[in-house]
């Protein structure tokens, strides 16, 4: 009797779709079989007969009867995702990867630095942390976008801001008339934090330039290399540590990551592209 087929997806139903911005939509799904994941892990989503692509859920990992995934239209498969309608059936393999080691964040100031669609996996992390918020000292959420209209999850920020555990700071490259928060690159928000950086952990997720300059700025502020968690984006096919597409030095990002601490990968060339 052969064991489980690792290449076979389990089925999810698409319940609802929300448009976040012209290029970004959030898909609300529910699984048709038992499904659990940890925050920081990702899944491979299949559109039947079309293709498969990796995404990190944006909903809380403590919820298992539904799942949200936010997807930016970038290539062939993501364009097809954007054409879907509620009621569609999707295939999901996973969860894959190691996820965030939340225990290591306990009792600490946690800095969450994100930009663009990189905010999606961070939302999952924030929601999961909030489910046991007493375990963390404070959660400093520093987010950036091109303009106020480009922020995804617009209705979520007022709720976040109202929470005592959360210190929410946002920056835009280009403000509009109503914007009364920071104008500038997201990294300037780190200057507004008053905390002991050497004892804090930081989680970074966003476009490659943001990851790079965000990391440099965190290091400059005194965050330790082993306390900077980076979500590495790589080409992926299997998610299983077999197909080779996601190789990064001695690691397969799908299996050993996708979250790495800066000290694990800093010596490899081209980590930021």
């Amino acid at each position, binding site marked *: 009797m052969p064991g489980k087929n690792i*290449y076979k997806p389990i089925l999810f139903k698409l319940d609802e779709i929300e448009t976040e911005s012209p290029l970004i939509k959030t898909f609300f799904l529910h699984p048709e079989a038992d499904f659990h994941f940890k925050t920081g892990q990702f899944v491979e989503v299949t559109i039947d007969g079309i293709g498969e692509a990796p995404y990190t859920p944006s909903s809380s990992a403590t919820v298992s009867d539904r799942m949200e995934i936010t997807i930016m239209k970038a290539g062939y498969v993501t364009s097809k995702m954007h054409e879907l309608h509620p009621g569609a059936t999707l295939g999901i393999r996973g969860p894959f990867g190691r996820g965030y080691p939340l225990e290591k964040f306990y009792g600490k100031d946690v800095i969450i630095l994100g930009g663009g669609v990189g905010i999606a996996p961070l939302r999952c992390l924030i929601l999961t942390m909030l489910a046991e918020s007493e375990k963390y000292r404070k959660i400093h959420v520093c987010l950036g976008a091109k303009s106020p209209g480009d922020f995804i999850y617009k209705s979520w920020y007022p709720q976040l801001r109202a929470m005592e555990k959360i210190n929410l700071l946002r920056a835009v490259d280009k403000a509009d008339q109503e914007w009364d928060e920071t104008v500038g690159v997201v990294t300037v928000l780190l200057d507004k934090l008053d905390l002991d950086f050497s004892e804090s952990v930081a989680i970074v997720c966003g476009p490659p330039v943001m990851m790079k300059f965000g990391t440099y700025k965190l290091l400059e502020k005194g965050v330790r290399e082993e306390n900077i968690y980076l979500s590495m*984006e790589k080409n992926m096919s299997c998610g299983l540590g077999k197909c080779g597409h996601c190789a990064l030095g001695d690691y397969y990002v799908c299996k050993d990551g996708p979250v790495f601490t800066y000290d694990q990968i800093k010596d490899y060339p081209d980590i930021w592209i």
Partner: protein
Amino acid sequence: MSVYSIARQEWAESIFKVSTEYAIYAPVEKFKTVDYELVTAENVSEIAYNGQLPVLPLKAFFFPVKENVGQEPVADKRIIIGVRNCDLMALKLLDAVFLDEEFLDIHYQSRRENTILIGNDCYAIKETCHCTVYGLEPYPQENMDITISPVGEVLYLSVATPKGATLLTKLNMTGLREESELPESVQRKRAVIREKLKNQHKELPGLEETKAGLLKTDASFWQEYAQKCVSCGACAMICPTCHCFLLIDRQNFEKVKNWDTCQYPSFEKVAAGEDPLRRLSKRLKNRYECKYIHKPEMFNALACTGCGRCIDACIGKIDKNQIIIAACKKD
């Protein structure tokens, strides 16, 4: 390991008898090249025990060029005869990848479990064979169920696993004789071949030195060699250890596992457009770093067993050993 002897003739007849139960593949020479063929009544007497390394890497039997992994695993019983040590040792890496406990590939596992591997001493070696450089011997060391060492019209069978022993019982050969050990002549032959291999690659550095040499290469080094590379991927397809693949979607959520390689453009390209291996020279370099630096570290197995096939196959006439020698040159 128990050793037996049997006349070539009787072995051929008996093995053919089980071809109703097993699909049997063995190296046969055709148009001056040796490759695995399905054993039939016509070619059973032509099995090339003393021939060249088969063109097809052994991996293809377990990790086919194209395989629908959305369906049930294939469980056909097979015997593969004439397998060489470089290919057997390559299975160590493939097993680590596909039989990994966390994500067991049942398709690979099923093919592997249902196959009996009959290894062969290497008597005819190619100019490009260089297994000894990486510490390997020119006869089966691991992963074989039986080893055949031919001496004239007699075949010596060394049984390495219960699977091999069971097959031997099943063959029920009346002329099978138990021997105390392999004859002196086989040992001598092994030593001669080993020396010959060592002599034909005297200047080629071993794994550790190769690693160190590669680490100090710069971009211009690879740009020079990349001029002759056309990204055809032949080196990877023919390589017994390269295991990269791409999953392609079919209807009903089925996936087809297709051989793929880092030598092809866009192998590492992400949806947003960035591609760390966009330049051909980086792809070429990646192949070497993968084989001699990263894979041995990740899987504790050789990712180059020195079979020499990639050198024979390269249409740009790139000799990977010359690249390694150049990379390790003291300056």
